């Protein structure tokens, strides 16, 4: 990535015409062709930007960024009056944003401690395949009964419907015709709980931090 700190004027022409008067700004030229002009205020949003694919032409005192936009052309002219800094910094390979607390994290944590679903369960398999997709956890209870567990961040009616569909297919196997369903989620919509109860699906609220032992549970008068 190339980072230029310069006193510059920026003129955009295309769907409209806009001009940033001369001032000191940070110009980011990314290897993918993105160009962003930042001020030292205004939050994360650039004052001007151009998304790839772009054509960048440079001559003394001028950087021109062009991009086709249908039959017209978007054009960003950065007229540099003074370059204060101009560095090229190689960056690491792209690695995606690691989000914590997503369904996969919950699935991993519950796969390790299925008993946290409120009963003695032992994991048979993660991602148990059915004809219509994998149910998150397939477990057996202390009586050796089958228990299908679907895990969501938010327990909604759609999640209940999804688990109901899985159970429909799982129960086609005579050995699993009594398979129970558990919907585990960090939060539940009340309507989902009502629907789940009417279908004899047990809803269990789970807390990822508690599952991981990252914090103690809140003290309550009863469970």
């Amino acid at each position, binding site marked *: 990535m190339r980072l230029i700190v310069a006193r510059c004027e920026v003129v955009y022409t295309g769907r409209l015409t806009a001009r940033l008067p001369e001032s000191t700004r940070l110009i980011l030229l990314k290897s993918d062709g993105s160009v962003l002009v930042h001020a030292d205020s205004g939050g994360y949003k650039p004052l001007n930007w151009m998304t790839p694919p772009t054509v960048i032409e440079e001559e003394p005192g001028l950087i021109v960024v062009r991009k086709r936009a249908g039959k017209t052309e978007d054009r960003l002219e950065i007229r540099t009056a003074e370059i204060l800094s101009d560095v090229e910094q190689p960056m690491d390979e792209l690695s995606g944003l690691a989000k914590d607390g997503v369904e996969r994290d919950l699935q991993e944590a519950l796969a390790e401690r299925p008993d946290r679903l409120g009963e003695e369960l032992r994991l048979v398999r993660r991602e148990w395949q059915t004809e219509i997709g994998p149910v998150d956890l397939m477990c057996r209870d202390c009586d050796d009964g089958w228990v299908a567990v679907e895990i969501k961040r938010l327990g909604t009616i759609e999640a209940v419907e999804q688990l109901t569909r899985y159970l429909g297919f799982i129960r086609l196997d005579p050995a699993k015709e009594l398979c129970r369903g558990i919907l585990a989620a960090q939060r*539940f919509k*009340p309507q989902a*709980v009502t629907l789940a109860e009417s279908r004899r699906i047990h*809803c269990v*609220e789970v807390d990822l931090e508690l599952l991981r032992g990252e914090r*103690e549970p*809140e*003290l*309550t*008068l*009863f*469970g």
Partner: protein
Amino acid sequence: MDRETTAEIERELDEGGIAAGVEDSPGMKITVARDELVAKLGVVSRAVSSRGTVQVLSGILLSAESGVLSLAATDMELSLRTTLAAQVEGDGAVVVPGRLLVDLARLLPASEVTIEYRPDEGIAHVVCGTAGYRLNTYSAEDFPRLPPVDAQLHAIGRVALLETISRVARSASRDESRPVLTGILVRFEAGKLVMVATDSYRLSVKETELDATAPELEAIIPARALQELSRLSPTAGAGSDTVELGVHENHVVFGTGDAWLTTRRIDGQFPNYRQLLPETFEVELAIARVELADVVRRVSVMAQRNSPLRLRFAEGELTVSAQTQDVGEAKESLPVSYTGEEFVIGFNADFLRDGVDSIVGDDVQVKLINPLRPAILVDPTGDFTYLIMPIRLAG
């Protein structure tokens, strides 16, 4: 209105129900006092549904008959209805958008309001002085039939009932995923009214002696409905010392003045609160209520983002402190009759404040076991108990 429909309305009124589910009449025309209309709309509008899924529930049912205008609203969990004297020139019923009617009624310029509904147009005309409105309506046929209020009714002392509700209601849960906890356990037993509410972090129990004999009954009633009853009573029940109570299999009826409130009963098993109340304590002391409430309120300002209030009991002194990272901290002491080893316990600031505010009397009796076991605040009279779970303190 044809004879059959009139008979149906009469039958429903005889049954104590409002004329919901009747056919639209050929025309309804009523004239009422604006101020009284505004007051009565204020009573029923609190049951108007704010959810847009069933449109007719966002309306108020107006039913006119024999010199009386009846108003009703329901969100299917709670219903409110009342009546007012009206000059009725045509009987009938119609559902008018509730919020709209309330808002415009407040602004009407003259002292008398005429509301005329012409079914062929599907429009309600509201005329007041030179102001005129045309409101789109919903059919009264679509309005749900409200639960009857003709159950065996028992008169309960209004002050006792409302005071009991006000003492326990804030401990009820707002988490709809645990419906039982959103209700208040109401039990009448041997000349006594007992109410219990808990959200699993705190629990309030209030026992109130009743002057008159009351029915032996137990029901879990939505806290929201009981709080509505409290709001309703000062105006609708003015001049009446009692609230009528009727218990049906699935719902409960309260009557106060000329207003009726019905609410569904909550199914389920309420936690056995008696088992939750500890019997022995390590620390028991009385603290001046007003002083404690003031200190807790002041220090709570710095208990933000779920930071706990820290109570440190030391020889002759209680120090209440709170700290929120990146915000600041607060600390204040007050003299207490504590002797013994230093004892530190943390509480949710809001829950502690609610507990102290629920106490009536000069002192709060504070009972503690250890920093991880429930603490108890008790009224000087001993008829109100507030159980509160501590928060684990770091370090």
